[in-house]
């Protein structure tokens, strides 16, 4: 049979394809419906948090930080309750990461504050002596792309039935109307910060990346479980 296959490239290719596709079918498909269900009480990310997630992705925090607490005592002692599948239901893409050059962040919102993050992102060694993490000062001046974050909320609402409110609708008009809410949320974060330029920018209606990122980091943890807390 093998000699015959080697002389018939078409059937050879079909054979290879069947053999390699097999595992994916068996391992991946059966789990799809089950794993995508959210845990009870979990709310999706707000638009500001989504914008923060974009900052997290843009500066590629996943290179050094995981968002997956494994079921070991050493991990739950350090980071809190181990991670559950349903907690990731609104994570597109997932950000588990594969390397912890820095600590896990899946529940960082439970034990770090806006103020801590502001100091840390400006100069990591000021709060963690010996840290090898670079400073991300450009996040204090770069403006976050709120419109794209809103577009993402619209997309996941309409296509994947993510439970957002009726005020999240496609089109420029809906976005202009919704923008005030996002700015309101940003002002709350900025109020807890000390950097005057950031406060001024938010007051002007421009949200620096750092504000969105902190909103996202604060959302990692219990604050997204309205029912539980």
């Amino acid at each position, binding site marked *: 049979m093998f000699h015959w296959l080697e002389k018939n490239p078409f059937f050879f290719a079909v054979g290879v394809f069947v053999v390699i596709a097999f595992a994916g079918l068996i391992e991946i498909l059966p789990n799809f419906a089950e794993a995508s269900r959210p845990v009870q009480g979990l709310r999706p990310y707000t638009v500001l948090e989504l914008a923060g997630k974009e900052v997290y992705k843009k500066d590629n925090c996943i290179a050094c930080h995981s968002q997956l607490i494994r079921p070991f005592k050493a991990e739950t002692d350090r980071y809190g309750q181990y991670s559950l599948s349903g907690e990731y239901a609104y994570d597109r893409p997932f950000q588990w990461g594969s390397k912890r050059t820095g600590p896990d962040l899946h529940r960082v919102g439970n034990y770090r504050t806006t103020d801590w993050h502001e100091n840390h992102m400006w100069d990591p060694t000021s709060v963690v002596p010996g840290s090898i993490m670079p400073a991300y000062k450009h996040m204090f001046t770069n403006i976050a792309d709120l419109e794209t974050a*809103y577009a993402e909320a619209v997309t996941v609402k309409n296509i994947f039935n993510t439970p957002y409110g009726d005020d999240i609708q496609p*089109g420029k008009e809906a976005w202009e109307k919704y923008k005030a809410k996002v700015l309101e949320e940003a002002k709350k974060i900025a109020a807890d910060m000390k950097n005057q330029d950031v406060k001024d920018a938010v007051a002007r209606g421009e949200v620096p990346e750092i504000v969105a990122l902190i909103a996202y980091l604060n959302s990692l943890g219990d604050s997204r479980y309205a029912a539980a807390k």
Partner: protein
Amino acid sequence: MQSNAALEYDYSVAKLFTYTTILFGFLGMLIGTLIAAQLAFPELNYLLGEYGTFSRLRPLHTNIVIYGFTLSGIWATFYYSAQRVLKVSMAESKFIMFMGKFHFWLYFVGALIAVVTLLMGISQAKEYAQFEWPIDIVVVVIWVSWGIAMFGLIGIRREKALYISMWYYIACFLGIAMLYLFNNMSVPTYFASGGLGSILHSVSMYSGTNDALVQWWFGHNAVAFGFTVPIVAMIYYFLPKESGQAVYSYKLSLLSFWGLMFVYLWAGSHHVLWSTVPDWMQTMGSVFSVVLILPSWGSAINMLLTMKGEWNQLTENPLIKFMVLASTFYMLSTLEGPIQAIKSVNAIAHFTDWIPGHVHDGVLGWVVFMIMAALFHMAPRMFKREIYSKKMMEAQFWLQTTAVVLYFTSMWIAGITQGMMWRAVDEYGNLMYSFIDTVTVLHPYYAIRALAGVMYLTGFIMFAYNMFKTMTSSKELTEEPQFRSPMA
């Protein structure tokens, strides 16, 4: 069936890909060395402002070495060896020639765009699949044009039976096509929201645990079909060609090929052990990872036994040295991988530097060594000149071998040290170390790894220089060498 007149093979596409292999190899390793040094000396994060941090540069390093250097190397060797094993010249079909050139130029332009977008931070933030959807579409066109060139050549072949290398190139083509398509399924938000925000942004079709499953099914097997399968294709062609020895066992080739095809895909879930992926899938990943030793070692042993009775070549020909060492590192790496896939070991190893250590003994010792050896073998035949310097090749070999050993030993120690410290408890059961304690302790290992990077990069520059001299000013050859590559 076959004519006896020697065919004049056309290497124009193979040459183009040879140049980009060297270019992207240098760039990728340069950035790799820089980010390795950043972990030891964090001040190096500020050389390029917002664009120079470890986090921004790391995907640049991985993408350039995977999709720049390795893919170029795969295609350089493909466009060289496919003509020879199929007994057909690229020049025989204007269409195939056009597809080959189109393939190259689209790839080159695509690669440049990819580098720029990654620097700008435009990324899906899926590891090894960072490109946003417009680049994904370009990638698909590039891939399809390779497919057309490959199956075109196969279509007009004179040698009816496909040689082992061709099996692996076909598998590489099919495997990556399947994996890449499924993993990058996403919805562009601009079109789904009535024209809001960035046109480049998209959201993954899968969420959370599902996304993780698909991603690591992709991530693991992109390694399989990018770093293993086509590299095995190379060694099956170039080792027998350079040594003048026939492949040791056809049956072992068969077993290894079909075994690898079947087993590899299952092992992807070993990247998500102890996660929220169902237990049975994690166990499947572990078990199949261990089974994977069989086909991997099958190929490696087949290659080593091909040298049976001819081991003297190892001392006389540095090219054979590169290939035999590559095969040996392949064995080391494919033993180490399954060990890390055992759940109890993974509990310590995962998230630590042992993982990059494992990756690099595989890529530096196996992938890069094999690609460099292949290009060295091709150079005298493509450029009709002897290799510029044997001495330099010897020096390069030892420098880089030392570098690989330094790299993986320092990362093994770093990884296990950190893994043990994360779980260490005092007599009352409290955690003994804060996280930062487990970072500062790694400084010497990070420094050693950076040094290893500098050494390996230096070796690669020697390779590039040797190749450049071979192309331009080495002694010309009057006829094509049959086996052993001539070198001064």
